[in-house]
């Protein structure tokens, strides 16, 4: 099934999530490329680091045939904030990912890294790089504008409307968005992944698509993971 066919299968809004159906859809440029990378794989394994969104599970499961792992890391962040143990977060995340190396075809990290300090972000990024299969893709979003003091802390549920648009649905958070990450910091954090596509949207969100290099000829995947 070609990706364009997904338009014909465009989902009706979930009744369970009807409350957010009036949120306007925002354009996305990198998501379609991310979906293309998944579509080229047989029964891809997808790791979603954001809050669970039922319609996304349906979208990725029914239409792309993904096996989806939902690991809401935002919840972990909030719990550590609530318990006043934010300094323990890097160690927590260092033990958090139990999956074997090179076991995931695609990762949706959404805007998670905007809420992590540099040290925690590096730990999470290191594990995501480890989990990704060769030629696997990681879709991330980074805010390009500094948070204002008046902004209330919130996370965002990103609801896939179709391959070119997302709904942003904010919900209350305990952790505030941190400083804006510079492009060079992002690149370094995810090394050795390479950035294949990067878009700055009008909403001041940078969408970045990372890819893991393919296995060199003659090398076994295990040695390159």
């Amino acid at each position, binding site marked *: *099934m070609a990706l364009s066919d*997904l338009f014909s299968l465009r989902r009706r809004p979930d009744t369970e999530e009807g409350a957010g159906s009036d949120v306007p859809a925002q*354009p996305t440029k990198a998501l*379609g490329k991310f979906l293309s990378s998944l579509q080229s794989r047989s029964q891809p394994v997808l790791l979603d680091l954001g809050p669970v969104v*039922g319609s996304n599970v349906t979208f990725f499961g029914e239409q792309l045939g993904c096996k989806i792992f939902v690991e809401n890391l935002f919840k972990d962040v909030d719990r550590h904030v609530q318990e006043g143990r934010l300094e323990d977060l890097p160690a927590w995340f260092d033990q958090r990912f139990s999956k074997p190396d090179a076991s995931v075809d695609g990762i949706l990290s959404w805007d998670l890294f905007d809420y992590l300090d540099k040290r925690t972000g590096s730990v999470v990024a290191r594990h995501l790089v480890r989990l990704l299969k060769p030629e696997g893709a990681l879709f991330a979003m980074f805010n390009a504008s500094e948070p204002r003091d008046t902004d209330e802390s919130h996370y965002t*549920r990103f609801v896939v409307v179709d391959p070119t648009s997302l709904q942003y649905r904010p919900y209350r958070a305990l952790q505030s968005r941190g400083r804006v990450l510079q492009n060079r910091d992002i*690149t370094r954090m995810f090394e050795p992944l390479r950035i294949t596509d*990067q878009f700055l949207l009008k909403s001041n969100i940078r969408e970045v698509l990372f890819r893991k290099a393919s296995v060199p000829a003659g090398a076994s995947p295990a040695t390159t993971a």
Partner: protein
Amino acid sequence: MWKRDEAVKPAANPTPAAPAPITQPAATVAAPQPMETRPMSRDVVNIGKSVVIKGELAGSEDLTIEGHVEGKIELKDHVLTIGPNGKIKAQVYAKAVIVLGEVTGNVAATEKVDIRDGGSVDGDIISPRVAIAEGAHFRGSVDMQRKAVPTTSASPSQPQAGKSAAPAAVAAH
């Protein structure tokens, strides 16, 4: 819904058919009173919130659990509903599973798994259809066992990106 009302009227249903027995090969009922099996119209059994079951629970009719169950639940051709008070630590197999309470364990359904607002599942789900409400908690994996969907080619076509409101693109690295 109206069927439920009928069921609670004693005059309308004076001698309800006894529900099919729920087999509990290794079950320990640790409740002060016997399990509440309230027959309703359409053969639905209700396990009340004071009931604790440890072991294997199998049956051939729809079941609503408001109590605690640990072990294994198997309702191959029927609907299992975990009520808002229900707490399950079990492997669950059913035709359809509706979760309003808490489930810890893997859930397999031949038709649908539906996690409603306030419902919670910690475990892996295998089902062709999965619905998760926005207020639900879920941690685990979802395998929807997609039937062989014809794939047209190995090289996927590009989405219609660019037709939408065009954001400023930054040169890719």
